[in-house]
């Protein structure tokens, strides 16, 4: 396999590193903390640039409005908290104060997915993509590992204009992407060629997709693996090519199936080149407490589930 796990690392650490690098390069970055700075990857920035870190308390709605005011005054604000609060408690503020005003602000959505683990359902962000994806002017980034989260965080500043949501997690997951591969917002990455079917994954399900492609190869199925690190704007061309050149598409995400990556891909496929699809993700349900790997297994968010769906998909022929 071309991609090797260099060791497990939390994607939140990638956000933290990316932010510190941005802080070094750009004076106009101001970060807003909502009490949980260290667990959402903001402590590195706060420690390195204390004068550009503003403590705002446990008041997420206010943070988004304050971010809008900073952006209207020439700053690029960064606000990070658990994805459940960053995206859902603040949705109206994101919609009007940030999106409608087209303001460049970076929102970090931490604790994405069930892999948050023992904290349980209240803190597992599983609907953030679905809700935010429907808002005009927003960009949604969902990088595959810690290395790519560094790139995505920097790209959120350098390549974007409006509000950007960067999604990342707490669990230590394989770090396998290469930092010398370009990260281009809106351009999916073809990680592996294949002609039987396509696996389009996001977040750390990308690693599971690579594992699944190896397992599938053992039974003679070649799977194309695509890392959809940008959920919005979605890479239409890459999806259309997959729909034309392979016999089916499987999407995989650590998020509700409803409204997430699977839906975004299906919206393109049905309009352009309809082919059979399977979607892996949370099935309209809440998570629960448990160890990250136990939860990923219980909810079918792993390579084995992708293999199962691949076999089913190819029977449609």
């Amino acid at each position, binding site marked *: 396999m071309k991609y090797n796990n260099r060791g497990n690392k939390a994607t939140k650490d990638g956000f933290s590193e990316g932010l510190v690098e941005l802080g070094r390069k750009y004076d106009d970055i101001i970060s807003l903390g909502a009490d949980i700075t260290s667990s959402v990857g903001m402590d590195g920035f706060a420690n390195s640039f204390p004068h550009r870190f503003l403590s705002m308390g446990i*008041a997420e709605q206010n943070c988004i409005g*304050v971010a809008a005011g900073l952006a209207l005054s020439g700053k690029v604000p960064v606000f990070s908290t658990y994805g459940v609060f960053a995206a859902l408690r603040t949705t109206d503020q994101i919609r009007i104060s940030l999106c409608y005003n087209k303001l460049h602000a970076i929102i970090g959505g931490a604790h994405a997915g069930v892999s948050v683990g023992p904290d349980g359902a209240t803190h597992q962000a599983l609907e953030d993509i679905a809700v935010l994806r429907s808002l005009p002017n927003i960009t949604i980034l969902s990088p595959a590992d810690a290395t790519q989260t560094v790139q995505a965080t920097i790209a959120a500043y350098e390549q974007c204009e409006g509000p950007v949501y960067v999604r990342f997690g707490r669990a230590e997951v394989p770090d396998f992407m290469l930092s010398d591969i370009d990260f281009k917002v809106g351009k999916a990455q073809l990680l592996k060629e294949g002609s039987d079917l396509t696996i389009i994954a996001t977040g750390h399900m990308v690693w599971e997709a690579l594992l699944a492609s190896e397992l599938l190869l053992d039974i003679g199925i070649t799977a194309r693996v695509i890392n959809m690190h940008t959920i919005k704007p979605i890479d239409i061309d890459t999806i259309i090519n997959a729909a034309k050149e392979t016999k089916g598409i499987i999407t995989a995400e650590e998020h509700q199936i409803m409204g997430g990556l699977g839906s975004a891909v299906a919206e393109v496929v049905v309009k352009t080149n309809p082919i059979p699809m399977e979607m892996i993700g949370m099935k309209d349900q809440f998570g629960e407490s448990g160890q990250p790997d136990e939860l990923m297994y219980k909810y079918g968010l792993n390579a084995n589930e992708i293999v199962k769906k691949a076999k089913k998909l190819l029977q449609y022929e």
Partner: protein
Amino acid sequence: MKKRIADILDLQRISTEIRKDIIISICEAGSGHTGGSLGLADIFTCLYFNLLNHDCNKPHWESRDRLILSIGHVAPVLYTTLAHAGYFPKEELLTLRKLGSRLQGHPGRDHGLPGLELSAGSLGQGLSVAVGMALASKIDKRENTIFCIMGDGELQEGSVWEAAMSSSHHKLDNLIAIVDRNMLQIDGSTSEVMEIEPLSDKWSSFGWEVFHCDGHNHGDIIHTITKAKGITNKPSVVIALTTMGKGIPSIENNHSWHGKAPTKKQLPDFIDQINRSYEI
């Protein structure tokens, strides 16, 4: 920047003209928020013709004072005042709420109207944005003032108090909130719908310096806001007592005029009432 107008009679005359243009534009639109717009005409006149550091020829001038209208539904008073202050031609006021207009029902910056600081209309968000602007001015050591116009009913939104808490925490003495205290909201009086009193105590317990003024007395408005600008180390709020529908006695203090437009038939009488209110 244009000359500040200090003469009270001149300011009263401008407010009267603004009131007439507010109801003419809302009547033409066929919908809009008449009561609150009329109630704020005197405060907006004082801000744009006396208190604010601004320049209609340089709407993006970095050191300008900022006026954040949190209650986007009273957009007509903002648009009309901006037009009278020279930001765009007054004739454009007749496009209010129409397809393709720069004068959206609630302010929308993406339609390109000069002088708009914020697209707003969802209550309880403006003060947070004003806090962000005030923080940015502190960071950049700009000496400008950020004003935020809020409704009294709007203070029922919890997010307002998150913003209020953060303003005093960060000692934002460059921030002045103005509460349009007309005692009314859509369903009736604020005391019946959801009591917000004791209002002064609420703001002062959140660390704000509290002022009161008569929101229709130009001298009092200017005097009070000038005092508020002198406060250091904490934000100020001016609770301005106003009358919904001010200037048209037959609709004053009637909450059914919160979001109703005058008909073409009513318009001449309403204009007449505004003229007579000015002469008194």
